[in-house]
């Protein structure tokens, strides 16, 4: 029975791809979405089955994939990754129904989307090296096709696709090498073989494998400094695709690290997890900083993805560190926090990217400096974005807060019991967590406030209208889920605990309990998210009532009177006088000047007649990615230089070509004797 789920996931995806590529434009998106839903539903069914019982789905056949065959196993760890992917995928594809008319109904896109979703869903099912890698590469390839949707119109999309393709390929090569090393040393390519043998490998091999896997999967998760493709590709992908990439695909990078580090290798020494934590700290800080100073809506969201993945890596690292120093309870809490952060991130980042996609559809731009006033024009999208923003800013009563709280509790209780190195790194992690928290709040106040509030800053924003109903429903569902998970985290926590136990290869034991208030078992930590929310709501109600009573009692003013705002005495206020995203981020940019090193360009042209009169002032700042500028660009330039030099190897002279052979012959003769 359970095998049916697996077959259905794969089959529905392939059928969706075929129909999406073959049907006429009127019906292809509908068919693709329907089959994607079937695929998601089957995956969800499998995941729920696994999580609600101790049953593990396994399936293997040698009829598919020559020389290796396919092995499928779904355990609780995999299942917990399947769930958010399928939820985000269902919402995004439903949203796609409305988005399709805006340039996402080509054959290639309709064919790639179901395949993309299916390969993402199946990655956690994979239980052999070959199966995993094939699905992993399929996922990369199909998402690349989606990033390329706008290639004929936008140079940026082409460039993003190239960055994405090359970085992903390099990452996949690292993963491939790691898994192949494991399988070669373990003597079998199924994960169960590897698990059985990996503990007996030499520490050098284990360390190499872990570092390679961390690099490869870290790049997929957007960990700094391997993140450079992410803000480009996630920003350029069309709405539903970017939601899937940022809300679902990056999770699989985390999955890979847990899979290799915890499951296959069965945990490791302290330095592994210090490395993970350092990667997490860098990603979180860097991502938050760039999110806070970026003025492109989707780029901001993408950097925030790096930031959130950094938090998850910190949690994973903390879990490993606590585990390695013998503190199972805090290790368990940190692992649960990591997985909860992952689930939460999927939901709110999905909602945010879908809302951003809606903004792009309605206004044709992602530039925050050209937006504004959308809350009145697109109320549903605006609320979705606001909810997502409050979630990502870890504010109660939304879901982001629960994960952050759990992580803080894990760190708090783990700290006093650890050794010096762990203490130092965890303290740094806490400081990072705190700083990124603040920066994220600033970033999302900016995104919401500049993008949706105030006055429209361009004609496009002025003319914006609310988007199609399917898009609103798709995005709204995720936003609603943000609230639900924020109020009742117990909906997912038991499943996450089971998955965390499976990841750490211990017997499942609860670390939290309570539907209304969340208790940490064995530690003094309680949170009552739903009571908190109820308190907030009733307090707000009371305040509103008081405000209304105060009004009614005194006089009969019209409720609220719209007026021109104050402009230092100036009568006319234009939208251009508002703060823009750039000016909003300016103070932070100044504070972190030394890190970001923005290039500023002040261009003053004076009147010819007198230097005291100024004709025009042009001021430009650009804060392109400093890691890209200082590490990637020189590297690319170096490779290009070599490419130019190497051309002389093949300069056309037949005598030179013969000389190669002659020299080779002489060398061979000398070597053989």
């Amino acid at each position, binding site marked *: 029975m359970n095998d049916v789920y697996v077959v259905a996931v794969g089959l529905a995806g392939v059928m969706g791809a075929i129909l999406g590529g073959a049907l006429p434009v009127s019906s292809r998106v509908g068919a693709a979405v329907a089959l994607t839903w079937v695929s998601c539903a089957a995956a969800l069914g499998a995941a729920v089955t696994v999580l609600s019982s101790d049953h593990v789905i396994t399936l293997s056949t040698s009829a598919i994939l020559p020389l290796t065959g396919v092995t499928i196993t779904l355990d609780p760890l995999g299942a917990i990754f399947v769930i958010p992917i399928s939820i985000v995928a269902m919402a995004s594809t439903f949203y796609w129904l409305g988005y399709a008319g805006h340039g996402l109904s080509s054959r290639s896109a309709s064919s790639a989307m179901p395949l993309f979703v299916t390969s993402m869903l199946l990655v956690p099912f994979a239980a052999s090296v070959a199966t995993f890698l094939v699905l992993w590469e399929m996922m990369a390839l199909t998402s690349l096709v989606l990033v390329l949707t706008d290639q004929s119109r936008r140079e940026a999309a082409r460039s993003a696709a190239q960055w994405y393709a090359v970085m992903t390929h390099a990452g996949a090569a690292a993963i491939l090498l790691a898994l192949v090393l494991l399988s070669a040393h373990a003597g079998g390519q199924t994960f169960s073989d590897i698990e059985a043998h990996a503990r007996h490998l030499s520490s050098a091999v284990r360390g190499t494998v872990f570092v390679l896997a961390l690099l490869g999967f870290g790049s997929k998760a957007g960990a700094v400094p391997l993140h450079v493709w992410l803000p480009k590709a996630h920003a350029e992908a069309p709405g539903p695709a970017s939601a899937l990439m940022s809300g679902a695909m990056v999770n699989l990078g985390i999955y890979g690290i847990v899979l290799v580090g915890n499951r296959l290798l069965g945990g490791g020494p302290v330095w592994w997890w210090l490395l993970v934590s350092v990667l997490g700290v860098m990603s979180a800080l860097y991502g938050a900083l760039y999110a806070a100073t970026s003025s492109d809506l989707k780029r901001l969201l993408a950097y925030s993805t790096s930031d959130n993945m950094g938090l998850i890596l910190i949690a994973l690292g903390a879990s490993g560190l606590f585990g390695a120093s013998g503190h199972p309870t805090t290790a368990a809490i940190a692992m649960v926090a990591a997985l909860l952060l992952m689930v939460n991130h999927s939901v709110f980042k999905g909602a945010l990217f879908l809302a951003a996609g809606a903004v792009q559809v309605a206004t044709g731009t992602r530039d925050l400096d050209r937006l504004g006033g959308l809350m009145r024009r697109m109320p549903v999208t605006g609320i979705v974005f606001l909810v997502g923003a409050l979630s990502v800013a870890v504010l109660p009563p939304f879901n982001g807060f629960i994960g952050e709280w759990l992580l803080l509790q894990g760190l708090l209780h783990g700290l*006093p019991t650890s050794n010096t190195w762990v203490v130092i790194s965890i303290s740094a992690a806490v400081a990072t967590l705190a700083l990124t928290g603040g920066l994220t709040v600033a970033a999302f*106040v900016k995104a919401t*406030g500049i993008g949706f*509030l105030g*006055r429209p800053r361009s004609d496009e924003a002025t003319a914006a209208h609310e988007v199609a109903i399917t898009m609103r429903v798709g995005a709204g569902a995720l936003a609603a889920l943000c609230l639900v998970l924020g109020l009742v985290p117990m909906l997912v926590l038991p499943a996450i605990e089971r998955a965390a136990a499976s990841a750490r290869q211990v017997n499942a034991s609860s670390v939290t309990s309570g539907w209304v208030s969340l208790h940490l078992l064995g530690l003094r*930590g309680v949170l009552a998210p739903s009571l908190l929310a109820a308190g907030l709501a009733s307090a707000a109600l009371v305040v509103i009532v008081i405000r209304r009573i105060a009004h009614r009692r005194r006089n009969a003013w019209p409720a609220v009177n719209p007026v021109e705002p104050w402009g230092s005495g100036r009568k006319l206020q234009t939208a251009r006088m*508002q*703060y823009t995203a750039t000016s909003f981020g300016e103070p932070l940019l100044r504070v972190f000047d030394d890190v970001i090193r923005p290039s500023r360009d002040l261009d003053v042209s004076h009147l010819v007649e007198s230097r005291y009169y100024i004709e025009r002032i042009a001021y430009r700042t650009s804060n392109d990615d400093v890691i890209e500028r200082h590490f990637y660009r020189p590297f690319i330039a170096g490779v290009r230089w070599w490419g130019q030099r190497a051309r002389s190897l093949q300069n056309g002279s037949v005598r030179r070509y013969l000389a190669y052979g002659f020299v080779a012959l002489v060398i061979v003769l000398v070597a053989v004797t």
Partner: protein
Amino acid sequence: MNQFAHFMTQVLVAVVQVFAVAVGGPLLLGLMRKVRSRLEGRVGAPIHQPLLDVRKLFAKQRMRPRESSWVFGAAPVVLVATVVAVAAVSPLATTHPPLGQSSDFFAVVFVLLLGSVVLALGALDTGTAFGGMGSSRSMTIGALCEPALLVAILAMAISARTSNLPALVRVGLAHPAVIASPARILALSSFLVVILAESGRLPVDNPSTHLELTMIHEAMVLEYSGADLGLIIVGESMRLVFLLGLLVNLLVPWGVAERPGVLFFCVGLFALLAKVAVAGVMIAIFEVFTAKMRLFRLPELLAGGFVLALLGAVTAVVAR
């Protein structure tokens, strides 16, 4: 029946705490102004003047900028609601506040942060340069405050092995040595810096300025009028009282009601008000002798707060 009585008691405690904070807030503002005036050689307005101001504002017309959305109107409500919600469940007058078991320090901080965020959004919704400016600056300060605040809480929580607020206060009562421990001293000094910055006091922001270019907080609320402005004044002053209340209870917990009983509670309430008043007076005296810092020198101050907190956390771990 007994449960119902217990429930009603809890509600009553909550209401009284909230009421005390709500009335105490404007009164504290008045007190601080009074002290300041006296030190500057003026008579100054009566201490209850802010209460009168608020009453007056509630009677005035509410206006909103032409292009603003519902967020503008919701901001003051959320601001007040957040303080009310946390004031109800925090160990202000008693160490057994309603829902005290789940009154978590982190949760309290994030709920308060929700209020600031919504206010900043409301400011951006005005569609004016001042709103954006105030919002941007306050968010910058907030972003730099948060690390100090979280690490300060962590430093205190590490030694107590919990971030539960009543438990933190009770630890101080049970083991006075904890209060004098370097970890808590460092953390509380950092907490103080954060309180000053967050509630817009000198040297971070001048609450009495009306010069647009130097305004931070005032720039944000420039467009609010009538009951909305009244709510903001109440909300902001409540937040100050609440945070000072937490600070004094963590620093000098004596007097707070440890056991149930009306008498204990009243003593606790009175002690709280007295301690907060003293703290307010001290802040007012400090403000007389302090000038506002330049905006771009603020990171230095807040970084100092952050380092204090971090040192606190590290000493807490080392001294475990």
